[in-house]
């Protein structure tokens, strides 16, 4: 064999770092040191960080010669979405199939909740309360407000229930199916504590199951009770964290749900144990197909709504989720990013000079204020922050601190979230039209192929370029 001195260069080898250990990589080492320091599990915000099969692993088969696309501007593509028409006197009617998920006042600032409500109303969709009750700002800002009924019972009362446009019974959450809510003491200010009838400044851990029911048989009675209280006016949703999706969807329907909400493992949180976030539940991609098929098998595709959530970011995600059987999607993290989460700056309206005449300045005029240093003080940086649990959100989204919360202008924030939701709806209809659909809900699994064997197996669509569906 020819001697190749260029391949064996002791000087160069010594200059290169040895490869990182796979089992004990840098993140794992940091995690061990963190646990050794804290003596408890790490807690953080956001959803699963790890790579799991997702909607990016699917592609749409848009029209060409065998089918015809619809024109973007002249030809109709409906996005209207109706929930609960079978039983509720006042069904939920949404202009777009994209909703805002439940996030508590407590986890989010009152300004953030108001901004989400305003944005949802601007685009004709719904927003959802959260584990902590309904704020007046949120109620008045929201055209359609879904009121959550959670195991903690925080802020749950008949008055607010009757003020709601739908009620969502939360059995679980994608970030922590089987676990309860968590709000650390630094975010439990006077107002939050008052709404939850708990002391200020104390860590709050919500129950992981509701005291009023264990199992779907009791849940059926609870749902009847809620229908009585609301005089059969509003739809009842049941939300589950995606684990045993087929069973859970069937049981939610058996208990009387008008809408089943399935939250995949990428679903976000304001504060949850890292081990929960990364190691429980199944990906949204797998969950939506299971849920859609369960409803189809029951023959209830039309009568019972399906909302899926967990890592939805783009109109392409929306289109693919609808194709796999969802009637709508629900977003949590993404609207927070639109509000300014993880941005290096926050936006405030310019302060007019003293004695100046009112200018009627536009709601959209703003100045940017850099807060990178505050991210650094939390030990993070814009683009990497998952520190919602600390309550020190530099852009005022996930905080109860008055100074920080004031950084989020609800009007400016709402404009951005509304723009984002409109863009998603436009992307969804663009893709649906390209598939020849006059309604986004007519997207179907046959419009999809998968890029990977894993995604093909989970979504039960063919691997691209083949007619092979793993397991079929």
């Amino acid at each position, binding site marked *: 064999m020819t001697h190749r001195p260029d391949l064996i260069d002791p000087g160069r080898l010594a200059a290169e770092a040895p490869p990182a250990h796979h089992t004990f990589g840098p993140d794992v080492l940091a995690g061990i040191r963190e646990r050794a320091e804290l003596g408890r599990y790490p807690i953080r915000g956001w959803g699963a960080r790890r790579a799991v099969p997702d909607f990016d692993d699917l592609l749409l088969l848009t029209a060409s010669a065998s089918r015809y696309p619809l024109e973007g501007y002249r030809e109709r593509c409906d996005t209207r979405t109706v929930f609960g028409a079978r039983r509720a006197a006042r069904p939920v009617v949404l202009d777009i199939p994209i909703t805002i998920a439940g996030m508590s006042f407590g986890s989010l600032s009152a300004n953030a909740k108001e901004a989400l409500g305003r944005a949802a109303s601007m685009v004709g969709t719904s927003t959802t309360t959260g584990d902590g009750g309904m704020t007046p700002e949120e109620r008045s800002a929201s055209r359609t407000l879904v009121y959550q009924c959670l195991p903690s019972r925080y802020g749950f009362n008949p008055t607010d229930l009757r003020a709601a446009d739908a009620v969502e019974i939360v059995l679980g959450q994608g970030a922590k199916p089987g676990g309860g809510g968590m709000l650390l003491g630094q975010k439990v200010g006077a107002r939050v504590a008052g709404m939850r009838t708990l002391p200020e400044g104390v860590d709050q851990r919500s129950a992981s199951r509701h005291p009023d029911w264990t199992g779907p048989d009791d849940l059926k009675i609870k749902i009847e009770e809620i229908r009585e209280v609301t005089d059969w006016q509003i739809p009842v949703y049941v939300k589950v964290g995606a684990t045993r999706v087929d069973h859970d969807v069937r049981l939610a329907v058996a208990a009387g749900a008008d809408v089943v909400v399935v939250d995949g493992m990428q679903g976000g949180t304001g504060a949850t144990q890292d081990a929960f976030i990364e190691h429980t539940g199944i990906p949204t991609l797998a969950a939506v197909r299971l849920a859609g098929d369960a409803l189809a098998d029951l023959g209830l595709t039309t009568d019972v709504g399906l909302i899926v959530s967990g890592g939805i970011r783009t109109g392409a995600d929306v289109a693919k989720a609808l194709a796999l059987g969802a009637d709508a999607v629900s977003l949590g993290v993404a609207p927070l990013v639109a509000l300014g989460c993880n941005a290096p700056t926050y936006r405030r309206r310019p302060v007019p000079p003293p004695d100046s005449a009112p200018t009627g300045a536009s709601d959209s005029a703003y100045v940017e204020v850099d807060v990178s240093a505050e991210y650094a003080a939390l030990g993070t940086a814009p683009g990497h922050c998952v520190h919602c649990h600390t309550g020190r959100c530099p852009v005022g989204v996930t905080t109860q601190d008055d100074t920080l919360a004031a950084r989020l202008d609800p009007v400016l924030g709402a404009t951005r979230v509304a723009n984002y939701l409109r863009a998603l709806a436009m992307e969804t209809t663009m893709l649906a039209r390209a598939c*020849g659909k006059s309604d986004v809900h007519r997207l179907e699994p046959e419009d999809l192929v998968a890029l990977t064997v894993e995604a093909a197996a989970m979504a039960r669509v063919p691997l691209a370029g083949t007619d092979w569906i793993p397991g079929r």
Partner: protein
Amino acid sequence: MCGIAGLHLKDHTYRERLGAMVAGMLRGVARRGPDSAGVAIHDDVPDVPDVPDVPGVPGVPGVPGVPGQAVPGVPAAPGAGLTVFREVGDPEEFAARIGLAGRAGVRALAHTRMATESAVTAAHCHPFVAGEERLCLVHNGSFANHATIRRRLAGLGIITETDNDSEVAAHWLAARRAAGDDLTTALRRLTTTFDGFFTLAVTTADSFAVVRDPIACKPAIIAETDHWVAVVSEYQALLGLPGLADAVVFEPEPEEVYLWAS
């Protein structure tokens, strides 16, 4: 994609000439659908005898010796008979083989197919026949949401024979008819239920109907005289019809149901 032709006699003295009229119409749309063809003929004489088997097309894979499909008279509608032929191969040769020009009847559909997404076999040929009343349908265009509708039909126990999109429409219409819709209502519903592009011609034991999708870019021409009404994909396919010079000729409007009943 395809060529369609349909003929409905108002004046049954033309009965003996129906086959020759349809043969000319089929020839006029043959180039639009070179891979297979089919014809459905309704007659008002009772008990149409079984049509002798017509040899299949040699050398076409998957279609060994497929005969013309003969459907005897429909007992549910006394006095009505329906005969259907569907074959892979050149439409004009098909017409000659089944002796189309010599066949009598009062109403007929003809189709020439350029397959889009489903296979080229006799079973995939139009006209599709569905339901108790043997509703017949020919389609030019393609549907974009038939997979979902096929699943819904399967949930009702209605199973399609092939993966063809047009077959779904035939069964869906038959299901709506069975649910009590008159043909006009069922066709109106179809225009809001099915996505895609379509000109459809539909016949039953007593009716002849035409409908187009809301955009109506698949061609269609209707000609009507006191004696007959015809629909074709291209005007030239009308040229051999007797009395065409006196016919009212028009393009059917989008989403409008045109229906003639005997």
